[in-house]
């Protein structure tokens, strides 16, 4: 009798392993794929970033005394590198790569009454971990557009609350997120299918795990909108795509 | 609940235990006077309650429409976005139909009271005929209102298009609902009449309601027609 259990157990494990291999196939394949790198730059003068007066909530204001935070609609690093641009493959992805969902949660943190990071990009269905480190209550209020298939919500997070997780159902670049209690708090969640990246403070980005192929690449920036370009990725190679937005 | 017809309760007239004899007080009922026929049947006869009930109900309906009217007046006066809806032509016809139905109902009531006076049980056909005419006129009115909505719809005026169209739809729809309620009442009355079980108070109550709907419509028509 015991033997029978053992047999069944082994068989189950084997079947599960086989299934796992079968389903993890595409992402394993993508691992051997290439990548896309590049920088997003701004040409011309960036839009004026106003300093924010947080006096409304002294808890916030105290954390930035003497050095007020500015708005983050255009954040330009050295050499005109544009931070918080979202780059993603808008056309040409095979279904397997497009539907892969990263199991790694992305953290959307509230600290000093500012969102960290200002922009995140996630897969459809990828977990977002909303965390707070502020001694004041925030409300998180994403406002997806009406026909997108995403449903908006609005939820408070009292100080000391553990992070909560959330996901989005449909691709949308990008969902604005705001805090009504601290109306200056503003951020974006870009929901895309397939590999993507957000540019860093130098404006550079790297998209990993891109299977070989011809793609249309889109870069989105909250103030300047989108730009696209064609890019070809060879297996194991790195392709380069730079974007330049024009300021006023 | 019970389908059998019951006679109205009979309270045998008794001598009034009044302390103040002669002044007629102590009779009870809201008419604290001695009824002209000398009996005290009026007290505790539930069929008068139907009349009272209808009047009380009409007071509530009046209040509701007063509220809607004040809303319309305020809304029309307070904002610059008021575009007056030209009333569909069919409404004039509807008005005529509804007014006519009041007359036909009154005919039915006359015939019925003559009937009750003569005490003949089998000649219910004449008031019944007039009741049916009233019923069909009422239905025609509701159908006409529906036609008016279709007409507005074809002009691209929906409920939320302009404040004026919102009020038009709300007022006419609420009124039509009340008319449908009245039609239900008339159906009930005519079925009672068919079985010769109709009491005058019931018919009176139904007709008061119906005439009120008629007057209410004339008022609403004017309200929707005038630009304040």
């Amino acid at each position: 009798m015991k033997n029978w259990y053992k047999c069944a157990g082994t068989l189950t494990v084997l079947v599960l392993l086989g299934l796992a291999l079968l389903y993890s196939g595409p992402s394993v394949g993508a691992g051997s794929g290439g990548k896309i790198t590049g920088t997003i730059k701004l040409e011309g003068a960036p839009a004026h970033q106003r300093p924010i007066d947080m006096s409304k909530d002294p808890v916030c204001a105290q954390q930035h005394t003497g050095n007020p935070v500015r708005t983050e609609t255009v954040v330009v690093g050295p050499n005109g590198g544009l931070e918080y641009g979202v780059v993603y493959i808008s056309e040409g992805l095979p279904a397997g790569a497009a539907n892969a969902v990263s199991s790694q949660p992305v953290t959307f943190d509230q600290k000093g009454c500012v969102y960290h990071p200002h922009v995140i990009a996630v897969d459809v269905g990828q977990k977002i971990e909303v965390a707070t480190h502020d001694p004041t209550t925030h409300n998180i209020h994403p406002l997806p557009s009406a026909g997108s298939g995403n449903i908006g919500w609005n939820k408070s997070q009292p100080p000391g609350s553990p992070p909560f997780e959330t996901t989005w159902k449909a691709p949308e670049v990008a969902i604005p997120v705001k805090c009504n209690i601290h109306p200056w708090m503003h951020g974006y969640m870009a929901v895309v299918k397939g590999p993507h990246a957000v540019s860093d403070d130098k404006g550079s980005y790297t998209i990993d795990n891109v299977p070989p192929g011809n793609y249309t690449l889109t870069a989105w920036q909250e103030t300047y909108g989108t730009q696209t370009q064609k890019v070809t990725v060879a297996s194991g190679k790195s392709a380069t795509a730079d974007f330049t937005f024009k300021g006023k | 609940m019970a389908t059998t017809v019951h006679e109205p309760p009979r309270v045998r007239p008794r001598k009034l235990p009044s302390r103040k004899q002669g002044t007629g007080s102590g009779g009870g009922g809201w008419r604290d006077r001695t009824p002209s026929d000398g009996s005290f049947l009026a007290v505790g006869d539930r069929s008068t309650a139907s009349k009272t009930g209808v009047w009380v109900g009409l007071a509530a309906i009046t209040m509701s429409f007063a509220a809607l009217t004040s809303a319309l007046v305020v809304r029309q006066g307070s904002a610059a976005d008021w575009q007056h809806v030209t009333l569909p032509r069919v409404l004039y016809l509807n008005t005529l139909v509804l007014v006519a139905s009041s007359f036909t109902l009154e005919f039915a009531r006359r015939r019925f009271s003559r009937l009750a006076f003569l005490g003949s049980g089998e000649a219910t056909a004449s008031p019944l005929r007039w009741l049916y005419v009233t019923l069909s006129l009422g239905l025609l009115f509701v159908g006409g209102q529906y036609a008016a909505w279709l007409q507005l719809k074809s002009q691209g005026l929906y409920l939320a298009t302009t404040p004026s169209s919102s009020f038009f739809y709300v007022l006419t729809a609420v009124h039509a609902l009340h008319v449908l309620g009245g039609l239900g009442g008339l159906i009930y009355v005519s079925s009672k009449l068919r079985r010769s079980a109709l009491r005058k108070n019931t018919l009176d109550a139904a007709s008061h309601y119906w005439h009120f709907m008629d007057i209410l419509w004339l008022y609403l028509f004017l309200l929707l027609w005038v630009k304040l």
Partner: protein
Amino acid sequence: MADTMIEAGVSFLAAQIILAVFIWWFSTSKPGQKIRNFPGGARGLVAAAIVLVGLEVLALGVFGQKAWANIYFTPPGPNAMPIQVQAGQFAFYFRYPGPDGKFGPIHPELINEATQNIFGLDLDHDQDSKDDIVTAQMAVPVNREIHLLMHAKDVGHSFYVRELRIQQDFVPGLDLSLHFTATTPGKYEIVCTQLCGLGHYNMKAYLLVMSQADFENWLKQQAAMQ
């Protein structure tokens, strides 16, 4: 307020004490005791109520009306300083007209809290908007009459400063105004008293009452921060 306080206090105490005394007194009456009427009966009490309360009502009505008229029937003086306040979920923002003394027009479609264009100003096209100063705190010079121009951006709010004894709702769609003079320098809180949503409890701004010189400095600082 004080006269109302006295009247209310006296009637409150009198009624409660008499009630208690009567209960104590008459709940222990003996079985054979006769029932007595209150001297004067119902007529006396009704007359007393009508005369006393009537007088009270008249008095309060007249005094109250005067106090009310002082605030609401007197227009702001010609030298009153205009300040615009906009209430939104869940913060107050203020606008000073700047050197030209004129407020630029508001374009609701341009309102964007991400860029801190709180009032929806079109700086590119509207000349009057360019020197407007938008702030998150309200500073006023002491002893200067302020003419507050109020509007709400989204839902109903209210402007309440306890120390100034003023409260006025913001009604969306209506432009309302209020005028007051602050006489004591200091830092006060402006709070919202009309339920406006989840952040209602934290909808506030500071009111800074300062000398004219300090005020001008403050305004310059704020102008630099636009």
